[in-house]
């Protein structure tokens, strides 16, 4: 599959690495070139400098042919906006986004975005660990 990942932080970079190992075609976007140091040394996908909320940058990242778009930046609102552009403007078949704020995540889920909140997931996980 062709996958565009916006945000090359720890999670974004690791995700890019493991998806590539599975044979997917990856493009990673970040506004800071320094972030690309996190990519594995043998990463053979595309690392593209640019803002994922910009239609032109998304086009250059190959969003029009992408099967999946993942919004993984630190900013909830940035993720929400980029994800909606990918879904509603470019009609990417599958769009995932990270939204830290559980309330916002819930709302955008009801609006049809596939969003997950690391806050909720991690809290549940720790709770389970404690109670097991």
């Amino acid at each position: 599959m062709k996958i565009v990942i916006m945000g090359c932080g720890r999670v974004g970079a690791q995700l890019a690495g493991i998806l590539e190992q599975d044979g997917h075609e990856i493009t990673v976007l970040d506004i800071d070139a320094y972030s690309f140091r996190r990519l594995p040394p043998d990463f053979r996908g595309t690392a593209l400098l640019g803002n994922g909320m910009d239609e032109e940058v998304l086009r250059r990242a190959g969003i029009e042919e992408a099967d999946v778009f993942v919004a993984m930046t630190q900013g909830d609102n940035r993720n929400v906006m980029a994800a909606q552009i990918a879904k509603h403007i470019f009609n990417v078949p599958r769009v995932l986004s990270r939204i830290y704020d559980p309330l916002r995540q819930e709302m955008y889920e009801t609006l049809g975005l596939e969003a997950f909140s690391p806050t909720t997931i991690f809290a549940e996980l720790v709770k389970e660990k404690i109670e097991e």
Partner: protein
Amino acid sequence: MYIVIVGGGRVGYYLARALLNEGHEIVLLEKNARFCDIINEELGSICLQGDGCEAATLAEVGTGRADMLVAVTGDDEDNLVACQVAKHKFNVPRTIARIRNPQNEAIFKKLGIDVTVSATNIILEAIEKEVPTHPLTHLLMRSDKGLEIVEVRITSDAKTIGKPVKAVSLPEGTKLALVIPMNRKPVIPNPNTIIREGDQIVALTSLELEEELRAKLTGL
């Protein structure tokens, strides 16, 4: 009206002040505590410290009964989210977002924001109007309806000077509304109105046809 403003920068501050003077009930949400203090000192207790993109903050100020939410922070994505939360969680009837990147205008419309205001576009239009040689000025744009009102200037090199309006084959879907001659009173054009140097012609057009309209009117 009860109006919630998100963002207490310069735009938010002056907007709140103007709306208060008109007698509206205003609440301003601003993340930065220092900005909040300054605003509350100058305008009375209208500013609450908090993130206007968060449903909890919006609930606290009673956004459910707001007639309008205006998001004027410096970040387009924050303005988008504040408006969407207001619309979908609190059913606010009218949401207005400030945008910095003019490209986002179409995106915001598509994502359900009622009105967008692009400072960049407004500045461009204002400058266009002041540049006397600029052949085409945008007076009003309704991008959601695909309509605009433009002003075309007949410069001295125009090939249509001295010709009646009927001799110009205007693109279908455009209409001349007014001719403002240099030293005479404005007239509503009829087919026999003669185009003269210095005329400012106000016309209704669509975005796609504006260039063709300008070309036909000036013959350039």
